[in-house]
């Protein structure tokens, strides 16, 4: 076990004063290897705190670039970093914060093909990703390769966190067995209070440190929720499901290829950018594409694409027969969430290769037609 040098003893002196940490605990942190999936709103505070705390090896997975709109909440980056790769930019920031530790940048997209190799080098995983597909992949990888996982997610003013430890409690799939991407909006679609991921990311860092040190009571089998508007925390108990697809008694997900295949409808849906839909409509004169607007009638009445049918997504299962099948079907909504859900419902109902307008009519108004009136949700 690595011992602390003089600079480290000074740097971590406030930890060394804590009987729960002390020199032995700090050495455990120095020997620890933690992987952070996503250098975003959650990954930023988690990485900063873990680096400051002296976690000896910190891996950062992110294949994205820093965008100006990230800076409202992603404290790893400053204005000069806009346009740079997130993993490498985060590595530089964290290394400057703590030169005593090793920061490993993984500028790749986590997938079924590389997750095993990436996880093999780490003993604990923090999920700060912003895509459901990645959340399930990370969970399944942690179950299959027996790695503790600290998971958190955010939406507008609300956050949730839980911890999975192999053999000690339920996993993320026990809580939410499956999610349709369109049913769960992300920050880009719904917005998020900038400070919110700071709170949840700090919870994740705390849990990771507790797991490394073996102290306290982790959030195993407990879902912690936070409502920033009410400034309230709640805790809910949940148990392992015997029928969980990955950690249950008869798992159907036995490899990461199974994990990806568990989302059958996702691959059947296409995303269309506003310019692509415009080109399609122009090329066909609008007559050979069926546009289905899945917003509520009140939103539809305020403004919609010419010739669009209006079937609110909640009515789609019983009204899907109203959709003509002779032309390609494109679903649209306000910001792209409901249309993605509609796409998956349509694919499940046998409509071939349905498409969804990415970013919804808000993106259409921003990129194609500024005259388009897009009503608030509801």
């Amino acid at each position, binding site marked *: 076990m690595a011992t602390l040098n003089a600079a480290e003893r000074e740097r971590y002196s406030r930890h060394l004063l804590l009987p729960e940490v002390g020199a032995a605990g700090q050495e455990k942190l120095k020997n620890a290897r933690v992987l952070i999936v996503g250098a975003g709103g959650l990954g930023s505070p988690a990485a900063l705190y873990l680096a400051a705390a002296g976690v000896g090896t910190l891996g950062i997975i992110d294949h994205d670039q820093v965008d100006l709109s990230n800076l409202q909440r992603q404290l790893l980056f400053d204005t000069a970093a806009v346009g740079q790769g997130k993993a490498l930019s985060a590595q530089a920031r964290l290394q400057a914060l703590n030169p005593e530790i090793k920061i490993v940048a993984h500028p790749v997209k986590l997938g079924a093909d590389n997750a095993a190799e990436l996880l093999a080098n780490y003993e604990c995983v923090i999920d700060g990703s912003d895509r459901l597909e990645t959340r399930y992949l990370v969970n399944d990888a942690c179950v299959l390769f027996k790695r503790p996982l600290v998971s958190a997610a955010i939406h507008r003013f609300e956050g949730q966190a839980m911890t999975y430890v192999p053999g000690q409690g339920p996993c993320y799939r026990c809580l939410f067995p499956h999610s349709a991407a369109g049913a*769960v909006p992300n920050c880009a679609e719904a917005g998020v209070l900038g400070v919110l991921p700071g709170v949840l990311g700090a919870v994740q860092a705390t849990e990771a440190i507790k797991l490394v040190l073996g102290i306290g009571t982790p959030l195993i089998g407990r879902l912690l929720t936070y409502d920033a508007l009410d400034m309230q925390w709640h805790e809910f108990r949940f148990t392992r499901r015997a029928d969980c697809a990955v950690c249950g008694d008869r798992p159907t997900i036995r490899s990461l290829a199974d994990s990806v295949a568990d989302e059958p409808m996702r691959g059947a849906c296409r995303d269309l950018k506003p310019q692509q839909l415009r080109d399609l409509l122009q090329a066909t004169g609008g007559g050979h594409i069926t546009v289905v607007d899945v917003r509520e009638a009140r939103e539809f009445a305020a403004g919609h694409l010419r010739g669009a049918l209006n079937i609110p997504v909640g009515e789609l299962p019983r009204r899907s027969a109203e959709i003509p099948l002779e032309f390609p079907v494109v679903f649209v909504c306000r910001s792209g969430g409901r249309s993605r859900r509609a796409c998956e419902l349509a694919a499940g109902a046998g409509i071939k290769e349905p498409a969804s307008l990415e970013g919804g009519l808000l993106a259409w108004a921003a990129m194609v037609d500024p005259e388009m009136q897009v009503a608030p949700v509801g």
Partner: protein
Amino acid sequence: MHTVRVPSPLRSYTAGAARVHARGDTIGGVLLDLERAHPGMRFRMIDEQDRIRPHIRIFINQREVNSLDEPLAGADEVHLICALSGG
């Protein structure tokens, strides 16, 4: 009358309200009462086969609910939880 806490992805149905009230002796009854007051909301949580959707969890106080027949007592609070994807 039970207090029902609404997750933010479903607040478009409750005019932004984080807490609403509903009557019912069971979770199923409460959800039907919610549907009367907030049309369309139940379908976001319950599928055509009357099963709780897999990205939704319902808790009575702190206790997880796996059936719509789960009974409710007078002061029980219902928490609707939706999987979140943001990071």
